[in-house]
């Protein structure tokens, strides 16, 4: 057990280091802004006094590295700074946005993961059958669609034509949970379709890879029943690559959520990011980027750790 703990701690440390480096990059990129941000916000007609006062207010008169450490320190304590556009504390509204996004992502994952595993397993078992070929064609087509295309098709068929679900998902915390669920179904379905194809293909590839190993061949030559071959011999070795695939796709979900949130006007972190980019509200963009990067790094870390734990050779290296 201690070797597992050691590896987890090692990877966690690496993740923190990466997050630290990422924060430096995000802060550094903002420094590269050509011209002054004050000029961009206050406009051409601002007097020098206004510019100087504004600079002092948002702290630009101090050197870059001091500002960076202040920002970092504040972030660790939970103070994410102030939005330039609305003058509110960012940590106020980012919390709800983040939980909304996680709710949407969680819903999509809950639908997509079991479906992808089952369909991928079946496709791998009945390889080269009609079912497999159809699945292959459908997934290849599906991963080629942009997310907003899938979103609008779903809106067209399920919302406008059939009237089942609302086309705009204005979810808020004071709604009942079932109502929240109802409004979130269309965006969750869109995300599911986008991610399902990826996961299905990767699961299928992982299992096919596994089934061609010599020991599986030996088991079937021995006369073992197919059921036992799959569940007793193949599946324990398949968990590693499969969970790896799932974690990587969940990370991809974090990114795909941005476009879907914009289409459905879902009040999540992705929409906040896009809005802030259009308004050039840099503190909010920075805060959102760090949060997204942290979630992404965490999920990749998780995939890493699971693939190490599930492989005894990596767990006890010589």
């Amino acid at each position, binding site marked *: 057990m201690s070797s597992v703990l050691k590896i987890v701690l090692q990877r966690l440390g690496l993740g923190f280091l*990466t*997050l630290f*480096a*990422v924060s430096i*990059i*995000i802060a550094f*990129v*903002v420094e*590269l*802004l*050509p011209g002054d941000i004050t000029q961009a916000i206050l406009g051409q007609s601002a007097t020098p006094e206004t510019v100087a006062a504004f600079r002092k207010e948002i702290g630009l008169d101090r050197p870059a590295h001091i500002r960076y450490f202040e920002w970092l320190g504040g972030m660790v304590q939970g103070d994410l700074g102030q939005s330039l556009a609305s003058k509110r504390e960012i940590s106020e509204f980012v919390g709800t946005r983040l939980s909304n996004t996680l709710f949407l992502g969680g819903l999509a994952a809950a639908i997509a993961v079991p479906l992808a595993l089952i369909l991928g397993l079946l496709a791998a078992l009945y390889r*080269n059958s009609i079912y497999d070929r159809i699945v292959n*064609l459908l997934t*290849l*087509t599906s*991963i*080629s*669609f*942009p*997310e*907003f*295309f899938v979103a*609008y*098709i779903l*809106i*067209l068929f399920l919302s*406008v*034509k059939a009237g089942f679900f609302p*086309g705009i998902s204005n979810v808020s915390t004071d709604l009942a949970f079932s109502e929240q669920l109802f409004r979130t179904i269309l965006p969750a379905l869109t995300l599911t379709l986008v991610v399902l194809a990826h996961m299905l293909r990767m699961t299928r590839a992982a299992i096919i890879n596994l089934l061609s190993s010599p020991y599986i061949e030996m088991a079937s030559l021995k006369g073992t029943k197919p059921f036992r071959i799959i569940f007793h011999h193949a599946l324990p070795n398949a968990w590693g690559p499969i969970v790896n695939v799932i974690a990587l796709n969940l*990370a991809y979900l*974090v*990114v795909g959520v*941005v*476009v879907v949130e*914009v289409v459905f006007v879902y009040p999540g972190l992705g929409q906040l*990011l*896009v809005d*802030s*980019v*259009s308004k*050039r509200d*840099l503190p909010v*963009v*920075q805060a*959102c*980027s760090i949060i*997204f*990067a942290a979630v*992404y*790094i965490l999920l*990749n870390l998780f995939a890493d750790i699971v693939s190490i734990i599930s492989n005894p050779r990596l767990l006890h290296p010589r």
Partner: protein
Amino acid sequence: MLKTLWSAPLTAKLGVLVIICYVFVAVLAPVLAPYKETAIVGASYELWSDEYLLGTDNIGRDMLTRLIFGARNTIGIAFATVLLAFIVGGTLGMLAAILGGWYDLVIGRIVDILMAIPSLVFALLLLTVFGTSIPSLVIIIALLDSTRVFRISRSAAMNVVVMEFVEAARLRGEGMAWIIRKELLPNITAPLLAEFGLRFCFVFLFIASLSFLGLGIQPPLADWGSMVRENATLITYNDITPLLPAVAIAGLTVAVNFVVDWMLHLSSGLKKEHQ
């Protein structure tokens, strides 16, 4: 090569045909389009008629013209971006494989950190800072994508660099440029070509998504992503016109994916096993 094309599965042949059609439309856009790209020719949201084959968009420009010019803009920009990404990432990957040691470690770490930020988020951040002009769009996305190309080209080059003929070339005193040109490149072309197709699809979808979010190719330039966003309200009126640019995007990506799938099959030698 014609023989390999002949023996390809139906999906790959269809894919090649579709790609050729798209490139044809993109290159000959000014000749094929009935109106000028940004000319306002009628009222907003006209229905499909003889005068405007696919109706007009939200401010009265002809949809068919915008679709045709959109092909040129979107495909052209995506192609230029992937080319740049391959030049930068491919060269760095090959250099990392040849030089090894310190260079490999440092470049590898930097690439890992850059890849730790999800690409859409990073692109949005950089676009906030540098603005959304076309050169900055191309350079930013090429930079982000060159990290992935770096990984692929480095791993492919690593396999070749350890071979005896490369060692022989080194001992003969050949310079690095010669080794890259004559020994490495011919041997890693196959996986890089397949990756080119995949990267093109990804960048194409990426630019369309960015334009859809309003942060990519700016109006009045015709671009399929922003066309979907501008005409999106038509969906609520049960009109499928705003989906036409999206279908165009999907069509090209599907075709390229089919062709790349076939190419991967060829290069991995699984073809016999699969059929």
